[in-house]
Every structure is written in C-alpha cells, then in structure tokens.
C-alpha cells in the first residue's frame, strides 16, 4: 500500500498545525462559527447530535496494521472506545472534543492518516473496490489511480469551495463493487480494441433526495489523461453548478438540466485548454505510485489446501463461514476474507478499540499487515493463505468478527440514523438490530442467500437505500417513525434505483414487513435468482400483497 514519503509527512503535519491554530483562534473567539465551520469541515469535524463527530479518511479503503492501531488509540483516548465504518470507506468517531481534535489528528498524522476533506464542499475520499489488487476478475488494480486522484484533490486550491460535496469512485473490474454509477464521477477501467486499458467516465450519479444513475460522457479516456480530464469536469461544475439551492447543487442536477451531451461538450471544451500539460500522468509518475501497490511476497502454494478441506468437512460452522466470508483470489492458494461487523443485535459497521487492535494483529499474522474497508461496512483481510483460514476463523470468532453473513440478509448496511445524526428523521440502528435478531438463524440466512438490505434514517440516503435490494427509508409521520420500503435496487454494474412498494410502515411493524418480503421472495424465486431479478419477473404485486394485505 501507499507509504508516505517525506513530502507527504511534511504536508500532513503542516495541515495539523494549521488546524490547531484554527481551533485556537476559534476557542479564543477570533473566528466566528460561520467562519470556522467550513474550515472545521475541511478537516472532517462535524457538530453532530451529541458532540463533535470526526470522520477520518481511509483513502480508497486501505489500511495497514499501524494505522489500525492508531485508530484504536483514538477511539480509546479521545472517544468512547469504538468507531463506525461508513459507506464511503471512512471511519467515524462520535464523541470527539474540539479542543482535543488537533491531538487526535496529530496521532493519526504520525501513521499517515488524516481527516482532510471528509466533509465540506470539497472533493471527498475517492473510494474503490475492497478487493482491488486481488480480485481475479480485475482488469487493472485501481489503487494507484485512486492514490493519484487523492493527491491531486488534496487541498486543491481551485476546488475548496465547490457548490457542494463531490464524490469519486473507481472500479478496476467489470464487476463493480465500488458503486461507480451512483457517484458524482464514476470511473470504470476497461480495455479498448487495441487492448489498452483506460477509463469510462460517468458523471452525475448520486443518491440522496434525487437519486440518479451516472451518465457516460467519455467512453474511453486513455489513462494518462485522467487528472486533466477530472480537472476539466470539476472546473465546469465549480463555475456552473447551482449555488442558490442546497438541494439542487450537486453535479447530478447540472447534468440532468443540461443533458449528458452538453455536459460532455463543456468538459471537452475546457479539457482542450488544459490537456497534455502539467497534469499528464507519465509512465514514470504511474510507476512511482504503482510501486507501492506491488503484490506482497506470496508463497508458492497449491490451489487446493488439504488443511482447509479437512476442516471444511469436519466443522459445519467453519464450512458455513468459508462459504459466505471468503472470496476468490488472483493468486493460487490464497483468499480474501471479509470480517463481518454485523453481529446479531449489533450496530452495523461498529468496531470496538479492542477489536480494531485485534484486527491489526490478525492482519500482521495472516494478511501481510493489510486491511481494507468495504463500503458495505465490513472489513477485509485481502491476502490470506487458504491453509490459514481455519486458524483465522477461530481467532475471529473469539473476538466476535466471524458472523458468517457477508452479503446475506443480516449483513445490513445502515447509516447511524437519529440515534447519532442531527439530520435524521428516524432511527436506523435499532431497526437493523431487530432485523438481525429476526434473521438470527444461520441456516435460514444461508438458505435465503444473497440479499442486500440498506437502511437510511433520512432522505439524504447515507445508507444507500435507493440501491438496496430491499431499501428502508426512515420518515417522520406526525412525530412517529415510519419506514418506506423500496425493492429492486442494485449498486453494481447493473445499477438501478429501487421502486417504492407502498405506504410507509410503522417502526413496530417494519421487521414483520421485511420478513414477509423475504419470505415471498424465497417462495417465488427461480433457482439462483436474486431478489432484484425476482421482482423484475413478478412485479411488485406479490410483495405488496404480502406486506399490506396481511396488515
């Protein structure tokens, strides 16, 4: 993974010093809240429902053991002993003091992490496939490009005060695990007829109040032009994005208003004036960054592990965990392993300081010291020898991170909701907890198979409910919590927005309603069919009936 060099270290230390001074001036009353707020947000510090919340960037979801330990240290020393992993591969701490935030940031800067631009009207964390570099279906590792985008966008002086936040995602694989089609800019690596790898560029995807699927404005962009092309898009947006209405200020609204063709034209016109210049990525530039992402020293291993096979046959629990939580790897004899942060009755995506420390140890022991954060709020050990899987499983089980439910009905993606968030209109975590209890039986969970439930506590859709197979949106009806149910969303390369099933369902009834949807799906599905395809085939009718007629 990327190692900070001296320049990066100096930069991040200067940033901490700058923020420390800004905090000092704020506490002394030299800066008003209005003046301080954008500065605070540029360092990822929100004023939230209970306290300040710090959102720490985990660039494209990659961490090493030392960084994990620093996160655990922050959780323990400056917070209440836990952190929350988000749908954009970041981590959030909910109880940070403003007057200690510079110290927490300094501790993180020591290991090359920061909270720069995780908030505010800036370019946010660029996210990618949590299996980058190891997925067998990968065309090219997207991480060097994510690192180049990260550096280019960090404290970019022209784009510090955009109309609104800006999110970029990259996939290096035809199977899109990074949800690029619902990002402000989505980049999909693919090959042209000559076999050269480049990017399809999509613009204007997004969720929130007005969900939209991104539109392609460039079918094939040669790699070396990536940064100049991004700069052109951002400049067009900075100048033309709406600033009069908070709810119409994302780039998706601009694309929707002028159309994809006009957007492409404007970008091309701007790009023509800046391409082939200082932003061009030379082969040397790429090589210098790519060096950080070379493969770890894998051992020569057979594709089949006898140790694994023996354990699989003798231990049903291990076999089940293996089936749902391990993933194919490019290199024979290895697997990527997902650590579930979705235990029964747990708040989705949370990990205690002790668990984070333990995962750092496990990463060093089993995965060449590297951990990834998946946007579904689980963690990944990307490079585990098949021979080591039984031992890893036992170690994970001992610390509550071995729930065998990855990608299944109880692997729920949820925003923090009204328990934590000042924007929320309903709670989301207790709904997730109750759902995991209803679907606690692992045999049943595995029988149901792949099913993504996403919960958002408000219309801002941080739980990505629009692209859940089952999406729940919390709303307030007369002071009580209700949940709108959508079906048929997808976040992958076949991205689609869910359709509303019917009237919103009360907090007390929503778990029953979801269970009826799931049961209907299991009853009606063809072999191997996922929920979204069943819904396409049968329409919403049977599901409506199951949820509303029985009420």
């Amino acid at each position, binding site marked *: 993974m990327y190692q900070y060099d001296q*320049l990066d270290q100096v930069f991040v230390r*200067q940033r901490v010093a700058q923020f420390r*001074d800004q905090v000092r001036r704020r506490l002394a009353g030299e800066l008003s809240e209005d*003046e301080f707020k954008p500065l605070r947000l540029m360092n990822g510090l929100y004023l939230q429902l209970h306290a300040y919340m710090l959102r720490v960037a985990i660039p494209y979801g990659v961490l090493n053991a030392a960084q994990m330990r620093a996160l655990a240290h922050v959780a323990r020393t400056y917070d209440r002993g836990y952190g929350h992993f988000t749908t954009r591969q970041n981590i959030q701490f909910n109880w940070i003091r403003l007057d200690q935030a510079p110290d927490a940031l300094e501790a993180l800067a020591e290991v090359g992490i920061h909270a720069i631009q995780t908030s505010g009207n800036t370019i946010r964390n660029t996210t990618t496939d949590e299996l980058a570099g190891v997925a067998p279906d990968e065309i090219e590792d997207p991480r060097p490009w994510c690192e180049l985008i990260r550096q280019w966008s960090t404290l970019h*002086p022209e784009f510090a*005060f955009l109309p609104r936040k800006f999110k970029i995602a990259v996939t290096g694989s035809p199977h899109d695990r990074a949800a690029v089609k619902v990002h402000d800019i989505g980049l999909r690596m693919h090959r042209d007829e000559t076999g050269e790898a480049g990017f399809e560029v999509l613009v204007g995807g997004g969720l929130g109040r007005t969900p939209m699927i991104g539109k392609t404005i460039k079918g094939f962009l040669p790699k070396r032009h990536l940064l100049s092309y991004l700069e052109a898009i951002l*400049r067009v947006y*900075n100048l033309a994005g709406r600033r009069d209405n908070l709810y119409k200020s994302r780039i998706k609204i601009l694309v929707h208003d002028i159309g994809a063709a006009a957007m492409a034209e404007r970008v091309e016109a701007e790009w023509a004036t*800046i391409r082939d210049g*200082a932003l061009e990525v030379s082969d040397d530039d790429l090589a210098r960054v790519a060096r950080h992402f070379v493969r770890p020293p894998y051992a020569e291993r057979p594709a089949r592990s006898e140790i694994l096979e023996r354990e699989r046959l003798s231990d049903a629990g291990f076999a089940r965990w293996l089936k749902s939580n391990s993933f194919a790897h490019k290199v024979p004899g290895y697997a990527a392993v997902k650590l579930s942060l979705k235990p029964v009755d747990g708040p989705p995506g949370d990990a205690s300081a002790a668990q984070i420390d333990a995962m750092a140890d496990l990463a060093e022991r089993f995965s060449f010291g590297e951990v990834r954060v998946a946007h579904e709020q689980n963690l990944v050990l990307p490079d585990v020898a098949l021979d080591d899987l039984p031992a890893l499983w036992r170690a994970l089980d001992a610390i509550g991170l071995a729930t065998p439910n990855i990608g299944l009905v109880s692997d729920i993606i949820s925003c923090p909701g009204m328990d934590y968030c000042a924007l929320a209109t309903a709670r989301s975590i207790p709904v997730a907890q109750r759902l995991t209890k209803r679907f606690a039986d692992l045999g049943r969970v595995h029988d149901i198979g792949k099913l993504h439930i996403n919960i958002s506590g408000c219309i801002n859709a941080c739980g990505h409910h629009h692209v859940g197979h089952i999406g729940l949106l919390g709303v307030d009806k007369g002071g009580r919590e209700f949940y709108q149910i959508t079906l048929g969303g997808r976040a992958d390369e076949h991205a689609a927005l869910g359709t509303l099933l019917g009237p919103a369902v009360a907090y007390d009834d929503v778990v029953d309603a979801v269970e009826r949807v799931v049961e209907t799906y299991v009853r009606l599905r063809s072999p191997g069919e996922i929920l979204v395809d069943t819904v396409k085939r049968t329409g919403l009718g049977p599901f409506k009936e199951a949820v509303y007629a029985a009420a």
Partner: protein
Amino acid sequence: MPLLKGGRVSEDAWTAVGDEDALPDSGALLVTLKRWQGERESLRARNDAIGIRLPNSAPVEAIAPDLDRIELVALEFPKFNDGRAFSQARQLRERYGYAGELRATGQVLRDQLLFMARCGFDAFELAKGEPVKAWEAAIAEFSVFYQPTGDGRPTARALRRAAAVSTPAD
C-alpha cells in the same frame, strides 16, 4: 478597505466608477463589466489604465479579447464559500496569460489567502484582521503542494521526479 498586495498594505491606485457616474478625465479606472461592454471603444481609447470588475457568474471569455488593454481584473467572492472566482482566476492566468493585477474582493477570509494566491490572485481586499500578519501566516502554512497551478510552486510530483533523476533507480 485595505488592499493587501505584495505582502504589504498599499494604497489603492484605482478609482472605482459606478455605472451612472461621470468618468474622470484621467487616472486608473475600475469599471463594471456592464459599463465596459457598453463603452468599450471609448474606454479603450483612454490614456490611462483600465480595470474591470468581473462578476463570478460571467464567463472569462467576456473580457478575454481585451486582456492586452486591461491592467486590473477584480473578481468577486460574494460569500466566502462561493468559490467560482478560483476557477475564473486560473483561466485568466493560465489559459489567457493575463499578467495584470488580479484582485480578490468581497468576503475574503484569511484562511483562503493561500488558495487564492495559488490560483493567481496577487491582490486582496481582506474582510477583517491584520492583513500583513494574515498574509505572512497564510503563505507559510504549507511547503508541499500536490497539484500544479500557474503559481510556479514545484509540486510534490515534480520534486519526486527530480529526486528520481538525481538518484540511481532501485
């Protein structure tokens, strides 16, 4: 309002003229884009320096053909978080090679000075605070820059390239 330029507070040598005001016979004039577009020929014909106030909703192309004659462009930050002028500044400097004074007006905060300088601004109407102190603190805050602008500061990438050339490859 004090004008911060070249790291010092200086007298503003320009006279801002409203759209309905009579023009003084001589002296450096700062006019609005609207007035410029209405009286372009007569303004061009004057002996003295011309400056234009460009709204942040106006395309830079509106004055691009006349940059040879313009010695001051005043760009606007109606609210500090309206960042359109950053892009206008870069277009003026980098695409059109504008070499005159580029002034930041409106709600200009000390914490934006470095961003503005990097985008090509060289004069600032600072909304509050002690200008010289603010300037010196702002430009000293960072010594590493990741992205190229027209400001000539070497980027991290350029420094790495140079280091690679002068050190034998691994």
